[in-house]
């Protein structure tokens, strides 16, 4: 009897926890869905092993549900995952299972860890860990693990657009283990000494500072279909 009661309590708690996790995510999604479109200026600083690039600037356009475009005069390096994929992923409640984890303070903000596991086999995302500020329904940190591209950990900072769930800064940590130079290009026949090659660090960091948001201005679809 005791055992049965213990199990029942755990099951109920689990159900409650699951319900809580879904609620938390639902509130985050609701907030994100208040944005139909936005334009923002992104200042990108990339610190990635085997890549040298100066800080660069781009304009980012977004329109629901998944229209996303980066326009820049120069070359801007952004992570493949991390801008809007999570939005689309979280929007479909039936495609994942969300389980609440511990509470952690991140950057002075109390957050709740929500583990999101896709239920479908075809999903590129294998696991998404979200540390969510439940008071403001804002994602403070995420760690997205994909099948082919390793893990990307993103830290979110919010400014005056917090009400829309739009961050003022994103810091991406990327797994660079997979980076390899093409052999035919890598061999520099003009190097006369055997130079010591430092092993590439395992993580690269891209810091994107987002300013001059223009939210819900009614962006035309043509922006996303025009060739640069």
């Amino acid at each position, binding site marked *: 009897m005791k055992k049965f009661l213990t199990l029942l309590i755990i099951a109920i708690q689990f159900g409650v926890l699951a319900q809580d996790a879904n609620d938390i995510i639902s509130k985050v999604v609701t907030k994100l869905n208040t944005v139909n479109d936005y334009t923002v200026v992104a200042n990108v600083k990339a610190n990635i092993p085997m890549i*040298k690039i100066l800080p*660069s600037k781009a304009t980012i356009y977004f329109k629901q549900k998944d229209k996303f475009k980066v326009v820049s005069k120069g070359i801007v*390096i*952004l992570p493949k995952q991390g801008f809007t994929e999570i939005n689309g992923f979280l929007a479909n409640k039936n495609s994942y299972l969300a389980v609440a984890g511990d509470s952690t303070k991140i950057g002075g903000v109390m957050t709740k860890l929500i583990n999101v596991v896709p239920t479908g086999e075809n999903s590129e995302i294998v696991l998404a860990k979200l540390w969510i500020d439940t008071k403001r329904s804002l994602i403070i940190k995420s760690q997205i693990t994909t099948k082919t*591209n390793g893990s*990307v950990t993103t830290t979110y900072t919010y400014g005056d657009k917090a009400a829309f769930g739009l961050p003022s800064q994103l810091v991406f940590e990327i797994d660079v283990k*997979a980076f390899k*130079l093409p052999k035919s290009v890598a061999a520099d026949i003009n190097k*006369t000494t055997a130079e010591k090659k430092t092993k590439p660090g395992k993580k690269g960091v891209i810091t994107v500072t987002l300013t001059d948001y223009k939210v819900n201005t009614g962006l035309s679809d043509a922006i996303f279909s025009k060739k640069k």
Partner: protein
Amino acid sequence: MLLKNTYNEFIKILSKPRSYLGIGALTLLVGIIIFAMKADGRSIISFVTSSFEQTLTFNGDVLNGNLIAFIILQMLIVHIPLLVALVTGDLISGEAAMGTIRMLATKPISRTQIVLSKFIAGAMYTLFLTLWLGFFALFVSRQIFGTGDLIVLNSDGLVILQDADILWRFGLGFCVAFLALLTVSTLSIALSAFAENSIGPIVSTMAIIILFTIIGSLDVTVFDNIKPFLFTTHMASWRSFFEDPVPFSAIMKSIVILVVHNILLAAIAVYKFNKKDITS
């Protein structure tokens, strides 16, 4: 007399059909590369960035005129030495074969001046080829593909250089590339002083370049001591201007080696030509 004969040498170079062969070949090659890049340049870029594109996206105009210019320079700098040697290797030995060296050597111009005027004219031709390459590679490419940041793959990774920071690199890079080609020109003229026909110096120049390049690429310790002094080792030093930070001391070293080669080869040619009995 040196200036007068240098002017003569210009006239001769401008009048020879083979001089235009080099310019025409260069124009054609650059045109083909530009056409190919216009048709399918993205696949070449993907080759370079594919490993990074699993986790990163490269936004912006990656395929731009600056990149095309860099690719052209990189591809053709191997082939242009032949186009240079084709003209400069003929400057002394071609005249020996034609018999005109006999006529020239009986004039009141010193043999040293004869050789130096050929060096100067050869250098001018090499400079013209370099500028022509630069014009096509940079100017025409930028007109067709526009400008933008330059993505360069070095042996230690990718370097992305901002558009505003590129022209001076190309400028200095072309200067060093010219010095490298000038070394080829000087070598072929020096070999020309030993020969009585045109083909010998041209073939010998290319053979030496190939041999030295192979020695430079072999990872064998027995060659380690001589590699730094082979001029072919420094022929691609123009590329160093596209690194970040620019290794100025290494580039200066390359410049010094190339300049020393030019001086030595010129001295050998002058010495040989002065001592030579002209029997043709």
